[in-house]
């Protein structure tokens, strides 16, 4: 594909958003390692957190190919204001209900985004999207089963699922913060845009949440939490970055 300068700029913005989400949520979810509710779930959740870092790495590699720094520098060497992750992924892990609900809402969006991108005119992105299809299918299966079973469990588990859904929902809408490059991405067939993605995401999660007998928040009355894509973050991101990059920053040139 012959790609113009403005298309490169647009595709880079899209990939930074995606990769930073994966990196930060991967790091957050890995904080459960050793603390998960049961051994089997601890292992599964940690393994999926590692998958997320793998997705981030593959995406940073595309940016590297487009002329930006190497994946390690992109992941560990950028300032808070340069990060383009959404607020949803920045929040602390909270209790397991919050982390599970975030995992569900994020991974359903991620799976749909990758499915859309597997048909992208930008080949590198389409290849990465196809490569992770199986992983994402498992992640959403895992999330759906937990949501359904806990929401249909006892009084406490049901209440916890509902309140974590209410808490996560406006944050999750922030995943789809519109981009200034939307028109270019759509007209060049790189990506169908955040609005189309959000609509198919709503259909998908409504189907699962109905089975779970959870009350779906009314999107029209909610204010989506935007800002992350433009570099405005929650108070939680900076401490996360400091901790995550602590060793790297001692000697960024070190060979591993």
């Amino acid at each position, binding site marked *: 594909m012959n790609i113009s300068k403005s298309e490169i700029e647009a595709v880079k913005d899209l990939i930074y958003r995606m990769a930073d989400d994966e990196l930060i949520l991967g790091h957050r979810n890995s904080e459960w390692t050793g603390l998960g509710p*049961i*051994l*089997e*779930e601890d*292992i*599964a959740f940690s*393994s*999926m957190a590692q998958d997320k870092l793998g997705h981030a790495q593959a995406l940073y590699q595309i940016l590297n190919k487009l002329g930006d720094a190497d994946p390690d520098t992109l992941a560990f060497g950028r300032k808070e204001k340069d990060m383009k992750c959404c607020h949803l992924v920045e929040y602390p892990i909270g209790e397991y209900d919050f982390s599970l609900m975030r995992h569900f809402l994020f991974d359903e969006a991620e799976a749909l985004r990758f499915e859309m991108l597997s048909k992208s005119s930008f080949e590198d992105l389409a290849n990465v999207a196809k490569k992770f299809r199986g992983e994402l299918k*498992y992640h959403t*299966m*895992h999330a759906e*089963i*937990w949501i359904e*079973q806990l929401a249909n469990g*006892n*009084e*406490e588990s049901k209440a916890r699922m509902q309140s974590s859904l209410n808490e996560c929902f406006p944050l999750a809408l922030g995943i789809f913060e519109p981009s200034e490059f939307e028109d270019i991405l759509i007209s060049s067939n790189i990506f169908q845009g955040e609005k189309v993605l959000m609509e198919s995401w709503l259909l998908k999660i409504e189907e699962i949440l109905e089975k779970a007998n959870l009350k779906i928040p009314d999107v029209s009355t909610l204010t989506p939490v935007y800002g992350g894509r433009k570099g405005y973050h929650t108070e939680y991101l900076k401490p996360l970055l400091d901790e995550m990059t602590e060793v790297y920053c001692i000697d960024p040139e070190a060979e591993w």
Partner: protein
Amino acid sequence: MSIKSIDPRVTRESLPEQPDTNPMKEFNHWQTYEVFHQEKSGSHHIHVGSLHSPNSEMALILAKEQYARRYKCVNMWVVKTADVITTKPEDEDIFETAPEKIYREASGYKVMDRINKFKDEQKIKK
């Protein structure tokens, strides 16, 4: 009488004031499942281990990350451990083969000498 607590979660559990002398039985609702994986289509499923799960649906989901995250796998089975029928450990002796029954095993037949002799005669490459 069940335990009344200021913590509503405890009260809701309706726990007896005099607990069962064998409380494990009651809390043992997360049974174990045996996991079998298949390396490629058509090959046998092989037992790879066990895990805890509240039900079979969740067992399959958890089995995937416990037993198939590093090695090749195309299919998995899970079976409740309680549903596996086994021989008794004290019956281990039924599997012992008496040494004098070697004639039942293919290795008991010493035929390689004759095969090699035949190959030599027929000038077949060994």
